[in-house]
């Protein structure tokens, strides 16, 4: 392996370690963070399920061990309380954003989260499509996974409107606003449109994308969003290379290329560093949704505010000098040279950003402790580990993209909302695995 391959392998395997170390094996639930008392995040479970596939494929986990753990997870969700009560687990096939790690019941009065359920179900479909043996356990795995997807009532989530709502609470009903502008919701619309049981209406995707803004910023034409995760989350599962919806056909681009340009904009923002933050530069960037220092943790006033956990973005912020060190790696397939250069530079300068060899949620080079090291977010976040693992794997082997390219629900969903061209032009089953390998 080259030095880069060694580095990527180490980071990916360490990321997988988060799921293996924190999962509750009896129900498959995985905590949102490694911090004491953290509840489960259902999105993190979706990443965990995907990580087991990668781990089996790379020989980090035995197949039967993975199948047992996945079955425990799927059975939990299948059998969970779906009555929509204030302390249930879900409703209409969706799940509350945060669940108690042990009981699996709603935690923190959280919302029934449409997007987090999407990320969970994306992981469910990945395991359905990877574990293809005829053993009783893998047959059961596929059956439950299929059942979980098919029972999600995506149509209900439109709340009799055009677009999909953000969430719902038993106490107050649907959140009264929806998705506005480009966001991480592409996978949501794809899965919702591909459902054979409860699909969204045909006008839903167009109703959402009508709010897209195609901007020229720092010399780059791209579908604009501030934080990096927006470009990453859906594409962790979906291979968007060369396929286009009506919006991208009009712009003569695609979402993969768009994500590459977003990297260039992030890098350019950091190079220009308009707010003069310590450390920012061509190879030190990564503004996205992450933890960060708050005004209390930052101690003395530093001349500006700190935002704690926030969706940081460019060019308008919020930006308080906090960088998610893992965020470039989550864009690895889009712009590998820029990402690897940034990854190496940041780790060389700020090795404390990877406590225990695993990325912390963020670090702030402008806030130094008594030991001379910069502020680092405590513990680890499951979403960060999951997106890093998946994007490194997509870069290295294309495994996850290959699985979703052959997922009938994904293909149906993409076609239903107007995607064409590229690999969608080929018949299913004709994918060349060699296309994905680096």
């Amino acid at each position: 392996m080259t030095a880069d391959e060694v580095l990527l392998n180490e980071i990916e395997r360490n990321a997988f370690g988060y799921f293996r170390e924190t999962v509750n094996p009896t129900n498959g639930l995985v905590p949102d963070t490694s911090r004491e008392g953290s509840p489960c995040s259902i999105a993190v479970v979706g990443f965990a399920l995907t990580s087991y596939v990668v781990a089996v494929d790379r020989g980090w986990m035995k197949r039967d061990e993975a199948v047992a753990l996945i079955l425990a997870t799927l059975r939990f969700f299948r059998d969970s309380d779906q009555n929509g009560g204030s302390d249930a687990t879900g409703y209409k096939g969706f799940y509350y954003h945060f669940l108690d790690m042990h009981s699996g019941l709603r935690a923190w009065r959280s919302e029934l989260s449409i997007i987090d359920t999407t990320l969970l179900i994306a992981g469910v479909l990945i395991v359905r499509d990877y574990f293809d043996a005829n053993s009783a356990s893998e047959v059961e795995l596929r059956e439950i996974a299929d059942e979980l997807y098919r029972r999600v009532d995506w149509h209900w989530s439109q709340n009799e409107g055009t677009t999909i709502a953000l969430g719902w609470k038993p106490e107050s009903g649907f959140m009264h606003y929806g998705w506005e502008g480009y966001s991480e919701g592409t996978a949501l619309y794809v899965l919702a449109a591909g459902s054979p049981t409860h699909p969204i209406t045909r006008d839903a995707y167009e109703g959402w994308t009508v709010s897209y803004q195609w901007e020229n910023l720092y010399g780059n034409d791209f579908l604009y969003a501030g934080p990096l995760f927006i470009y990453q989350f859906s594409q962790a599962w979906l291979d968007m290379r060369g396929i286009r919806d009506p919006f991208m056909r009009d712009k003569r681009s695609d979402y993969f290329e768009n994500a590459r340009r977003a990297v260039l904009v992030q890098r350019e923002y950091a190079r220009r560093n308009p707010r003069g933050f310590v450390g920012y530069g061509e190879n030190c960037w990564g503004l996205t949704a992450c933890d960060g220092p708050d005004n209390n943790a930052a101690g003395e006033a530093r001349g500006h505010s700190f935002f704690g956990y926030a969706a940081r973005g460019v060019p308008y912020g919020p930006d308080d000098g906090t960088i998610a060190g893992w965020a470039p790696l989550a864009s690895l397939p889009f712009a590998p040279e820029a990402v690897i250069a940034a990854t190496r530079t940041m780790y060389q300068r700020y090795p404390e950003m990877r406590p225990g060899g695993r990325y912390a949620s963020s670090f702030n080079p402008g806030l130094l402790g008594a030991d001379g090291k910069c502020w680092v977010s405590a513990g680890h976040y499951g979403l960060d580990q999951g997106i890093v693992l998946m994007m490194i794997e997509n870069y290295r082997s294309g495994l996850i993209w290959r699985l979703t390219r052959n997922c009938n629900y994904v293909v149906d969903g993409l076609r239903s909302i107007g995607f064409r061209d590229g690999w969608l032009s080929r018949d299913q089953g004709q994918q060349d695995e060699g296309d994905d390998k680096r």
Partner: protein
Amino acid sequence: MHYVRPPDWHNPSPASLYDLVVLGAGTAGLFAAKMAAARGKKVAIVERHLLGGTCLNIGCLPSKTIIRTSRAYGDMRDGAQFGAEVPHDVTVDFPAAMRRVRRIRARVSQFDSVRGLEAAGIDTFFGDGRFVGSDALTVNGATLRFTRAVIATGAHPSTPTIPGLAEAGYITNENAFELTEAPRRLLVIGGGPLGCEMAQAFCRLGVETTIVQNWPLFLPREERDAAQLLSDAFARDGIRIRLDTNVESVRIDGGETLVDLVHDDYRNTIAVDAILTGVGRTPNVGDLDLEAAGVAYDDSHGVHVDDFLCTANSRIFAAGDVCLERKFNATAEASARIAVANALFDEHRRLSALIIPWCTYTDPEIAHVGMYVREAREQGISVKTFTIPLHEVDRAIADGEEGGFVKIHVRERTDEIIGATIVATHAGEMISEITLAMVAGVGLRTLANVIHPYPTQAEAIRQAAEAYELSQASSPALE
């Protein structure tokens, strides 16, 4: 009062027939009357309260006056940012700020004085004007017959239907400028333009201010980024922001005003000393006897007009806030121009042909003209936006005013400007360059050749035009 409603005023004897009778002497009404009179028409104008209407007396002018004072205090607070020594013991003189509002209002009112109308040959009638037929109205017992009429009665602050609010008492822009003493704790209900402007101004005048908005962002019509920048500015000012929150009820307990708030299913209560509502404006269509004139209307949208601003009665037109969705001073004036031209001079001007700029006068200001991207895309127009963050503009850096942008929207693969949003300290001044370009049909490419004085923040517009030119030279398309 001497200028806008003299105490000793006596209405004149009406003429036997007016070419035009204007009902309402605010911005739209005054403009309509003066325009018609200047072109030789016999004109009467009827006003229930004061000449000048909302803008002069309780709207744009007093609010901008107090905003200027609040900016002065904001600059003193931020002095260190400019390398200046922050004055010690800065204390806000609220009564002085309000005296300045009233002084400036009195000065500007001279421009709309009753004597000025008299000199223009316009008959001015104070009192309640009510239609008595399709071609006549009465005011204080006098009957005014007309060939044409323009209804320009404006709008008044909408009142949110919140249990206990009326009993607890509240202020609106109609009486906020009469305050002589600052409340210690103020709740502003509504995150539209008025609510945002007043919240920031009062906060900078030392009032502990909370703003409640029932939507996840302020200014829901505006660009998402603009609204976000405004939220950031509010947070820096120290305003307590409650987004996506509703006021459930107001109550008095132990002599204290308590306001119950709800966000999703989370409830809490805050104590305040005053409540200011800024939740929009309702057209003034009451007590006009519009039915007698055959003019269609409803309470929320006001007088119904067609694209030529003609009502259901072909003799009667309308202009300004009483009939327009976008209730701005400049739009009121522009609509009055259309109404008079169509009513008296047989022209066929269309409201839909107007290119309308507007501005919210917060710090930074948020100005817009033309279409938003969503509006354009809903009409099937493909849009490309050229964005210049103000941290790319030398003058903005020098001014310490980098928190903003210029976004210019063009029709994709052309340089036709279809809209723009500017967030900048003086965005309201800057937007006019783009408005002019749109009205004149000047494309973005041409603006690249317009020399702007260096350094100015308006250079951002030229920079956007240069970005357009560069993108034409190196359009990176996947094929």
